[in-house]
């Protein structure tokens, strides 16, 4: 029987000719990632595995991005534990403030993930790298510690859902709308324990940033990973960023899927996830009148340069509604500089937006944009659970950068097309 793309990558890393669904395997890791929330727990666990050094100092990445730049003394202590551990073990890929970016935008940009790789990260959005044809998945701190000590992790081989894409997006529709549409359709556990494998002629029209956004939120459907075929778009990105040679895996023609879902990209509308689940979606024409207090544009999901350009195109020459706040978070230092050089910061600041250094801060209610009781935010981030961005009685509406920018101007959740028409 044939294998899916994910199954082939797992088999190769377990040094097996083939694997079957449900099989438990021990696989070699190409990269082990942690951040300032999860790595301190892993660092405490690390000595218990009986190794004095990490398995490979080039294959561990430590990125203090969540409560960094340090939000308080306790957060500072956590970041310090990463810095100390990185120094002690001569970790090559430790990125402190100044080099730091949001981990899932940073690792691909630094060329640390290649097509065909197997990556684990103690962060649930580690599945982002499926955009580049890698198998990557989120794990906890104990698995991270074990990975750092041994270079291996055990996996149960997943079955898969195939998402067969056709057509092209309409204006103002992007990867965020696609993944929210899918989660709305299958639910927050619709792909539990499964791979989401994207395929079809529609893939070619997705930019690499669209793919990062889509793969990033595979976890919000409960998936183990989300993965895209390695085509010219992926290869072009890899050639520019990664010094290693891509290893391309393709699903066999007779690979088995639990479910095949056909999606016409041209039929997708701007989609918003209402509180308090990413699956609670409505299309922009079903939203009604929702007054908002804050807009967040950025994060590992939508802090890429194309996301910022899209927001800037809508904000240009307009003002943020007087009762609203709009916060912009470029995902990495490189994106930050690129946005500045392209003049996007002039547009943002002239519109009344605040531009931040890279951090995960507001996405998880950590710092740099925490919500008060009763406040509502439109956010390009990935979760809208109860209390996610602050007070337990605050609300988060997940949306694309285009919808977020339009909403900032109107002060209500708004269709980007309606803003542009006014001009």
């Amino acid at each position, binding site marked *: 029987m044939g294998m899916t793309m994910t199954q082939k990558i797992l088999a190769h890393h377990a040094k097996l000719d083939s694997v079957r669904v449900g099989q438990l395997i021990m696989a070699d890791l190409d990269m082990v990632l942690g951040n300032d929330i999860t790595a301190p727990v892993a660092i405490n666990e690390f000595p218990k595995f009986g190794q004095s050094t990490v398995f490979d100092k080039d294959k561990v990445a430590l990125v203090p991005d969540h409560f960094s730049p340090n939000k308080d003394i306790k957060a500072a202590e956590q970041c310090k534990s990463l810095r100390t551990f990185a120094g002690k073990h001569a970790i090559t890929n430790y990125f402190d403030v100044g080099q730091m970016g949001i981990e899932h935008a940073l690792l691909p940009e630094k060329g640390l993930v290649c097509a065909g790789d197997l990556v684990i990260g103690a*962060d649930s959005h580690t599945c982002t790298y499926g955009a580049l044809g890698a198998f990557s998945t989120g794990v*906890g701190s104990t698995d991270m510690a*074990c990975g750092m000590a041994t270079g291996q992790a055990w996996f149960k081989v997943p079955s898969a859902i195939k998402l067969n894409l056709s057509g092209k997006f309409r204006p103002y529709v992007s990867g965020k709308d696609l993944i929210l549409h899918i989660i709305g359709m299958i639910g927050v556990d619709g792909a539990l324990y499964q791979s989401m494998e994207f395929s079809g002629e529609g893939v070619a029209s997705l930019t690499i940033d669209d793919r990062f956004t889509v793969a990033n939120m595979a976890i919000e459907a409960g998936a183990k990973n989300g993965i895209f075929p390695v085509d010219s778009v992926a290869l072009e990105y890899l050639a520019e960023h990664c010094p290693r040679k891509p290893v391309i895996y393709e699903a066999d023609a007779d690979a088995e899927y639990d479910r095949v879902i056909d999606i016409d990209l041209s039929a997708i509308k701007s989609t918003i996830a209402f509180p308090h689940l990413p699956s609670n979606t409505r299309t922009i024409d079903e939203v009604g009148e929702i007054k908002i207090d804050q807009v967040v544009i950025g994060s590992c999901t939508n802090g890429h340069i194309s996301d910022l350009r899209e927001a800037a195109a809508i904000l240009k020459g307009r003002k943020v509604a007087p009762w609203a706040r709009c916060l912009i978070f470029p995902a990495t230092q490189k994106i930050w500089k690129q946005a500045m050089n392209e003049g996007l910061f002039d547009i943002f600041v002239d519109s009344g937006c605040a531009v931040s250094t890279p951090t995960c801060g507001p996405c998880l209610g950590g710092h740099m944009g925490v919500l008060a009781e009763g406040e509502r935010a439109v956010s390009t981030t990935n979760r809208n659970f109860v209390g996610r961005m602050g007070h337990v009685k605050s609300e988060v509406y997940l949306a694309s950068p285009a919808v977020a920018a339009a909403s900032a101007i109107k002060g209500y959740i708004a269709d980007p097309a309606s803003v542009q028409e006014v001009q």
Partner: protein
Amino acid sequence: MQARGSVFRYGDNIDTDVIIPARYLNTSNHKELAMHCMEDIDQSFVKKVQDGDIIVADKNFGCGSSREHAPIAIKESGISCVIARTYARIFYRNALNIGLPILECEEACDGIKAGDVVSVDFSTGVITNETSGKSFQSEPFPPFMQALIQAGGLAPYIAAKGAKA
């Protein structure tokens, strides 16, 4: 290996943000984390929970973040076992890795209410609702997983195996 206690009953999609809100993740101290366990969905949990108590929930328990702080907070609060219809996969792995026993059992979830006294035998997988007198069969843990849970998690389990070898 057994667990026995009274039940806290929750619904579908109990996410890691309500199990332990991110605003408390500036520490990895187990006791501090336990002080805020379930805070955003059940403010009375921490006041009421006693050693040995059991959480019973519905679908997709532990969805969301990979934070191991979530099962750590639950275990440290005194909870001896979680029973749910299904778990989010990262939470499932994390719970067992830190030695928190968690079971999947549809029938038990149908037949257990808040406040019921429930006992669990991990070697047989039998879940007994002592309040109603009904029993339910879940998939028992294989011996290595029982040993791993008894050791307190993956790290002490592997360390103990290494010491023996």
